Structure formats: C-alpha cells, structure tokens
C-alpha cells in the first residue's frame, strides 16, 4: 500500500524524519508511537502530501504521492481540527464530504445512523457550528468523515487524545472492524500504549525522526514499550520497600 524510500525532512539543521525504507502492506494495521517531537505528525503530513520532504519519495498503491491526486480517492485522514471546516454544522460538513465521493444525502444519513452510538447524541442536530464543539466532539466529526469515505487507507493522528473513555472503546472497535472485516489499511498514532497495542498488529516506535523499533504486536509488546518509555524510572519494588521500612520503624 505505502512504500517509503530514503525519506528525509529537515527543519533548519535538525532532521525531524529520516526513514531509509518502510513498507506497509495492504490490510495492515499500523500503530505509530513516540514521544513529542519524534516526527509522527510530520510523517503523516508527508504521506498526505501536505509538506514536501527534502529527499526521498513516498508511493501509495505504486504511485508517487507528491503532486498526484489519485490517492485522495481512497485515502481518508484526520490529523487535527484543521481538517474540518469550522463554520459549517456537522451535518453540512458530512454531506459535503459525502458529496465529494458521489454519495447522496440518503446514503450519508445511512452511514451516520450507524454511527449513532459513537456520536452519543452530541453531534447531529445540536444546532452548533463545528467551531463551537469541544475538541473531543470535533474529533468525532473528523473520524466520522473518514469512515464516510469508505477508504482503503485510513490515517488518524492521536484520535484517542481528547475523547471520553466510552468513545475510546467504541473507536477501538470501529478501527478493528474496519481493518479486520473491511480490509482497510489503518495507520494510527497515539500516546496511549494500551489502546495502540490493542488496535494495531504492528507497532512502529519513532525517536527523533528515526523508526527504532518495528514490532509485530504480541503479548510482550506492551511491556516492551513501557520499558522504553519508562526511561530511568525503574518501576521496581526497591523504593516501595524502603518506604515500608521507614514506616515500620
């Protein structure tokens, strides 16, 4: 699906993304993790042709992404609120997106009805413009617009960050369902290691623009990631024991 070769992005003299080779096959579910500034969003933006890399190329379905538009027909993405038209109502926006994919209003309505649980009654017919929604609800609109497009490739940047726990679980199920039963290739980034290892079959760990780990998710993945992110904080028993001793004295 996605092939990346010798990709480099440099801001000033800092290399923010440096990926010699990466391929993502059709139907894979990929999770992107890494601390702030690791280059996750920059990578997303380059895959979506929003910024131009200094060198290297990205192909989607065999076609170079930069300067081409065929990939837009089967790629749906939501990185931030900047993807939403803030002065429209959610309905207007979703009809607009559906219209771009030649869907009638009835078809859009059908998809939205299926999303009723996910929306939790907070999105449709509330008489608000998107700009007046909370960040979490804006995220719901963004995710819904992605699913509406029936994509082959779905890209979400930190979708779990602002939504409530119930919606997080629903979103996880929706992502799994899209990937497992519809064969959608998903690329999702998150800071929540539990969610990401739950949803994704393959985890890419980024540090300072470089993919330092590329692991197939297994039962040990979560603890492996926790070890990496818990740098210097040995969650061991020693300090606890010490406190216990002091209390005993």
């Amino acid at each position, binding site marked *: 699906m996605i092939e990346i070769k010798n990709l480099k992005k440099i801001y000033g003299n800092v290399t923010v993304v440096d990926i010699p080779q990466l391929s993502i096959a059709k139907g894979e579910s990929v999770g992107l993790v890494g601390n702030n500034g690791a280059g996750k969003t920059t990578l997303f933006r380059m895959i*979506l*042709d*929003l*910024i*131009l890399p200094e060198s290297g190329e990205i192909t989607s379905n065999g076609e170079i992404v930069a*300067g081409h*538009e065929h990939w*837009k*027909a089967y*790629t749906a*993405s939501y*990185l*931030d*609120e*900047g*993807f*939403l*038209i*803030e*002065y*429209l*109502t959610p*309905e*207007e926006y979703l009809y*607009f*997106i559906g*219209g*771009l*994919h030649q869907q009638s209003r009835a078809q859009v309505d059908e998809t939205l009805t299926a999303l009723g649980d996910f929306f939790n009654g907070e999105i449709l017919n509330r*008489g*608000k*413009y998107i*700009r*007046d929604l909370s960040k979490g609800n804006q995220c719901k609109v963004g995710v819904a617009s992605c699913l509406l*497009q029936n994509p082959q490739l779905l890209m979400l940047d930190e979708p779990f960050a602002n939504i409530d726990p119930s919606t997080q679980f629903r979103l996880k199920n929706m992502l799994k369902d899209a990937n497992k039963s519809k064969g959608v290739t998903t690329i999702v980034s998150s800071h929540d290691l539990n969610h990401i290892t739950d949803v994704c079959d393959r985890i890419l760990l980024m540090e300072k623009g470089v993919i330092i780990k590329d692991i197939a998710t297994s039962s040990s993945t979560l603890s492996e990631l926790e070890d990496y992110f818990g740098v210097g904080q040995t969650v061991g028993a020693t300090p606890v024991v010490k406190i216990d001793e002091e209390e005993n004295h």
Partner: protein
Amino acid sequence: MISTFIRHELKAFWRSKNTGKSIAVRVVMIFLILYLFGCILLAGIGMDKILEIAFPNDDLVKSFCGIVLIYFLFDLFMRLQLQELPTLRVQPYLHLPIKRNTLVGYLAITAVFSMFNLWPFLLFLPFIFKIIAPDSGIIVALAFVVAIVGISVFNNYLALYLKRKSNLNGWVFLITAAVLILIVIADFWWHFYSLHNISYAFFGRLLTMPILAIIPALLGIVMYYFNFLYLKQNLYLETLTARKVKIYKSNTDIPFLSRFGTIGDLAANEIKLVFRNKRSRSSLIIGLFFMFYGLIFYTNKSLGQGWYLFAGMYMTGAFVVNYGQFMFGWQASHFDGILVSKITFSDFVKAKYLLFTTVSVISFVLTIPYVYFGWHVLLVHFVMCVWNIGVTTTIVLFFANRNFKRIDLSKSGTMNWEGVGASQLLLTLPLILTPYIIYTPFAVFKHPDIGLALLAATGFIAILTRNYWIKQLEADYYSKRYRIAEGFRNK
C-alpha cells in the same frame, strides 16, 4: 504587578502575527493613523473658520458651545461601533494568585488608552486655546478642558459597558442604537428640542461659572467606578469573552448552486463562510457601501466617463476585490483538509469563479437604478461587470496563489491588519490600472466608445478562454502549494 501586565501587553502586541510583520505594512499603517489624526487636528485648528461658515449669524464661542454635546453623541455612536473591548487578555491571570482588584483596575484603566480618547482633544483643544483662552481667561479654558476630559471618560466607559452588555444580549445594542437615533431625529426632524441649545445651556454657562466643569468630571468618575464594579462582579470567562449568546444554528441549502455538483458545493461553503464569520461579513458590507459610489461620481458633472469606469468597476466588483485580496487565507484554518480531500484544484478555482460571477451579477442588478443618470451609465456598468467577471477575477486568483497569510475568521474587520501583506498592497494597482490601459488611448483620441467596446470584448474573451487561465493558475498553484499550506499553518 501592573508593570508586569504592561510588559506582557507590549510583548503581545509586538509578537502578535496580526501586527503585520512586513515593514511596508507597518509603514502604511502608521501613515494612515497619522493621516487620520492629522485630518482631525487640521479640523481642530480650523474650527473657528468652519464654525464661521456653518453658523455665520452666531457668535463664534456660542456656536462652539452648541456643537460640543452633538459631537459627543456622535462620538458615543462611533465608539459603540468601533471601539474594541479590552477583554480576554486577563484570562491567563484569572487562576493565579493575583488580587481581583488589581486585575479589574488594570482592565478598567487600560480601557482609557484607546485612540478614540485622543479625538476630542485634537478637535477641541486648539479652539479652546486659540479663541476661548484669550477671550475669557485661562481659568475658563481649563474648565473647558476638564469638562471635555470628563465627558470623554464618561463616553469611554459608557460605550464599554454597553458593549459588554450587548455581548450577553444582542438586544442591548439594538435598543441603544435606536435610542441614539431617536435622540437625533427628535431634534433635527421633529424639533422637539434643540441639542444645540442644550449644549450651549451648559457650556455657555461654563464661561461665567467655570466651577460647573466639576459636573462632567464627576460623571466621568462615577461611570468609571460603575464600570469597575460591574467588571468586578462579572470577572468570569462567560461574561468576558466577546462571544454572542448561542442561538440554534440551522443547516442551510443554496438550491441554485446545487446543480453545479462539487463546484456548487464548494461555492455554497464559501458563501456560508462569508455570512457566518465576522471579518468576511464586514467585507461584504463594505461591498454594499461601494454601491453608493455612483451617487458621488454621477452627480458630479465635472467628472467624465473615465471616472464612470472606476465607479462601475468598484460597484460591480467591490466584493471581488475586498474579499478576493485575502484569498485563500479565508480558508487557512482548514486548508489542510481541503488539500487531502478529493477536491481537484481546478474544481476549487472554478468554485471561486462561480462565487465571483454570482456576486458580480447580483451587484450589477443592484446598480440598475443608476439608469436614472442615463443609459450610458448602465452600459458602462455592464461592460465593467463583464470585465470583472473575465479579467479582475483572474488577476485576483493569480495573486491568491501568492498569499501565504492566514486570516482568523473570528476577529472583527475594523482596523484589523491580519493577513495584509505586500501582495494585497500590490494587488489593487493592476486591478485599477489595467482597464485604463485599454481605455485611455481611445479616450484621448475622442473615441471612448471604442475603448469601452474593447474592454467588453476583452472581458468576454477572458470568460470564453477561462479554461486556459484555470490551467495556468493550476500549474502556478502546484509550484506554490506547500508554501501556501505552510504559511496557513503558522498561527
């Protein structure tokens, strides 16, 4: 603490993206403000001459005393329209261990530093020291100054109070405006009373009893204190934010546009953009004001047909120029979304053409009453409308590809320099000059109608060859799109 606030305020001003980074913009901005103040000062210095012409039968001081109050009525009305509320700037301090009185005091005091408070002094001080001081002595002159300071302060805080109230309830503004208009109508049309006489009754007495100046001074202090108390009781985000009370926002369809498919959808979105956001709405309203250009140009017999072109172009194309000069900055906040969705650039641009064409045609229809000044006027309007649809739109879109500045839709339009850059300043020149390049040679050799016909022909050719221009714009856009998107991401 206050000095820290002021330091932060200065930093906010100089580091804000709205301050217009390029030197050209700053220079023009400073120049415009100085020019405005210069004009007012000139009017102030020449006040005695103006009053002599306006009220030739009255004593100079008497007519001066008569207009002061009328000015302040106008001043209040203008403040209600234009003065900015010093509001959300306190938000980051609300949760910190800072005394409420400090915060409120700071908010209330800084409200004095508004350009509007300079106006009355520029306007009235020259007269006071030129005419009143030599006539009635320095004590009386000082009394006048104190009275004017008092009323200015009173107006300042009254306007702010009313604006804060009207942010919570839209009716307050409407009622205030209605009351102000009624006060004026009751005087000038119905003659129930005379503001001129009321104003003289007070300021005339000031000449003999300077101590009366204490009344406006007290009024000012009371209004300040009232404002202070109101702010102190309402130092909450909901009342401070300039956000209007939420009303139910309904979905809108524009059936005329839906027949154009995706292009129509995009144009409909843009129309919603214009109507649902403050700044874009004001550019539309300014466009409507340009509709009155004809009254200036056509009633003045000394202006020839050359000026008609200008009037016609602005009346049918004011929106294209006013709104178009900031394109695509209006869509900056969701430009990434446009880039990744299934919209081709040619559809994107065609939607702009559709929008401009629709608005220009509507503007042309609105100018039809000018036929009162002769059929020729209407013909010029038609030609300039065709010219705008064909040529102006393409020039505007050419410059849109060179605009990398985002626009915050939620901010109001008055004195807002956000998004103004070199490309906006450059844009107007070719727009105004190009029709004259074609027209002037023929006008000079006494065949203006051939010039007009050529303008129309050029416009029509541009419309017929539009697909070619779209291709050119597209190629141009592809070489600049990353810069545009990056510029728009820069908040």
